[in-house]
């Protein structure tokens, strides 16, 4: 028996911690565990993934989980994110869990993948009412633990405590997270996970094909191609310019690290929403405070 859980979240949302809590909980049950995050050079708000593999035998796998039994989506805006691709490779009869405040049952996904089971729960709402913050690492871990059904609530609680303690959280916050985990655990049902292996049918590239191409980095010649990565999807807050207050001082334009601000004819800034990554430097630097914020990602 081997169960592979893949967590999709945004940087700062606790995907790695969730994968660790689940891992530690399963480890507390005496199972073999391997957990790991993937991240590159991104930052808060960027899509990240983490994995927990649980087995009663040896774990003879490593790295990215391409064929998960269970996928935990911590932020429903990631469902159609081209970088995250959370639906990829889910095994037949596997489970897709979506944290959502919208009450949607995700019919579209169910129609496209009738062979998987879709579950949803408002983890963020529970976290807001029980912890007072939209932090959902323990809630997500609790949901995953309940779905896979191999972990008791006792082991889960112990795991939440030890993992959050390691992160330096204070006792009060840890207890609130334990309460949250318990609530989520009790609200969901285990799912029978007898999934089928997911095959990638792809041949190997003959080396002649690579030989026949110019494949050095000299091929990448166009400057400014980072525009193609829509870092706008990383935003948690969107800066909004109040053109009545804006004095056209151009401070924001000078500071924006993404060059996501351009100037209009009157030297007032326009934000490129596809690429503004929401770092909020413009908001902090604007002398007359002409920039306000609007929250974008509901689940965060």
């Amino acid at each position, binding site marked *: 028996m081997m169960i592979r859980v893949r967590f999709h979240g945004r940087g700062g949302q606790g995907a790695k911690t969730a994968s*660790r809590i689940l*891992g*530690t909980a399963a*480890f507390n049950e005496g199972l*073999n*565990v*391997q*957990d*790991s*995050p*993937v991240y*590159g*050079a991104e930052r808060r708000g960027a899509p990240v993934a983490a994995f927990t593999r649980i087995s009663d035998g040896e*774990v*003879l*796998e*490593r*790295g*990215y989980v*391409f064929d998960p039994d269970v996928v935990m989506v911590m932020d429903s805006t990631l469902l159609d994110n081209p970088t995250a691709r959370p639906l990829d490779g889910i095994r037949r009869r596997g489970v897709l869990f979506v944290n959502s405040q919208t009450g949607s049952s995700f019919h579209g996904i169910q129609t496209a993948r009738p062979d998987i089971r879709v579950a949803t729960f408002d983890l963020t709402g529970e976290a807001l009412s029980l912890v007072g913050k939209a932090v959902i690492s323990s809630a997500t871990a609790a949901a995953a633990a309940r779905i896979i059904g191999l972990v008791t609530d006792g082991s889960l609680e112990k795991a939440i405590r*030890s993992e959050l*303690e*390691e*992160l*330096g959280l204070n006792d009060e916050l840890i207890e609130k997270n334990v309460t949250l985990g318990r609530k989520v655990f009790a609200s969901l049902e285990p799912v029978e996970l007898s999934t089928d292996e997911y095959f*990638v049918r*792809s*041949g*190997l*590239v003959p*080396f002649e*094909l*690579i030989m026949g191409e110019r*494949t050095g*980095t000299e*091929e*990448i*010649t*166009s400057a400014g*191609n980072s525009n*193609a990565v829509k870092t706008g999807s990383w935003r948690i807050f969107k800066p909004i310019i109040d053109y009545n207050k804006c004095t056209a001082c151009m401070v924001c334009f000078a500071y924006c690290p993404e060059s996501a601000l351009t100037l209009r004819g009157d030297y007032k800034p326009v934000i490129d929403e596809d690429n503004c990554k929401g770092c909020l430097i413009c908001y902090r630097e604007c002398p007359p405070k002409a920039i306000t914020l609007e929250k974008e990602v509901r689940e965060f």
Partner: protein
Amino acid sequence: MLQGMPSQGYYTRKGGEGVLSGSTLMTGNLAAAWGARLAGVDYVPAYPITPQTEIIETIAKWVRLGQMKGKLVQMDSEHSMLTAAGSASLSGARVFTATSSQGLLYGLEMLYNISGWRAPILLVNVSRGLAAPITLEPDHNDVLAARDSGFLQFHAETCQEVLDLILLGYRVAEDRSVLLPAIVNLDGFYLSFTREKVELPKMDTVSTFLPEYDPPAPLRATKPVSHGATVLSGNLYSYFRYRMHAASLEASEVFRKASAEYGGLFGREYEATEGYMLQDAEYVIVMSNSFTTIGKQVVAKLRERGVAAGLLKLRMLRPFPFDDVAKSLAGRRAVAVFDQNLSPGFGGILYPEILASLYHKKNRPQFVLPVVGGLGGKQLTVQELERVFESLRNGPPTFPDRPDPMYLMREDEFDRAKRNIAIASGGG
């Protein structure tokens, strides 16, 4: 050693000493830090680089909290870091340091000095592909660039091995008949950031296995000695180089004995190589480091289908375990050598070492297939390894032609790479 230190317990950010049941989940980086802590190192010159930084961060925290007694100093580069490491070792300190990729190459010049000084430091390298192009994920061109430096090399497949090989590494490196520095290699991400079960040995038992370093001629202000003297002649140079080679060869036997003792104390014994389903295997793949785990998965699957597949893992790369390799591979029908590195214009770096081990064996395999894959941490997939075994079973094209090397990449991965390149080139 660190008298009065708790024999067990791990650091939590709250500052407390948690209680350990002996086995716990930890990353490869944390296991490496624990290796240094349990070895009771005196001095840790440090310089950060992804994906190694967690190791020195962890040690820095332990030192700050008084949980580890050694001294940690952040240097201004890997070159100074290694210079400090080697010189401190000559004064009799047990020295630990860690780096990765470009950092290892930046300090490369000093590696040859440290081995020439016969200073038995332990250096952890967290593998990461070399720039350019820049990446964060692993292959072994970095650590293999240090292959000829005189450092002993141990390569870890699991987080447990990271810890155990550090303790064994010190023991072998500091042995009077060896006195050479050692590298313990672990893969970035696949081990460095991956948690799995690690048995943490008890500090007092480690102290029995690894007593305080006793240098033959430590640098002392009151008793000046000279190390790494200028020779200016080929005669003397050759003499010292041969001595170093002899000491490295000697390390094989020292490792074997130390490992047997380690096994007795901690229940885990290591050989220079490890066989997996090797008995009666006709088709064998040779691998090293963390992707070996994926190799084992494929071998186990093939066995279920009745294919006589097996795997040989290289754990110690320097000294090279010629005899173990020859014994394990002679008599097989076909062997594949998986190199997670590339010497452009040649191919995989370990392939010729395997051939050299086999050439004079009467019953050497007729077909030894060179395979390159997993560069820059490209995920090694089951499909790729299945194709490797398929090639082994189909045999060489037309003997005695040289077998065509396999360079692993799946069509879908290639297409995705081409698509990204098109976008980045302003096409897409």
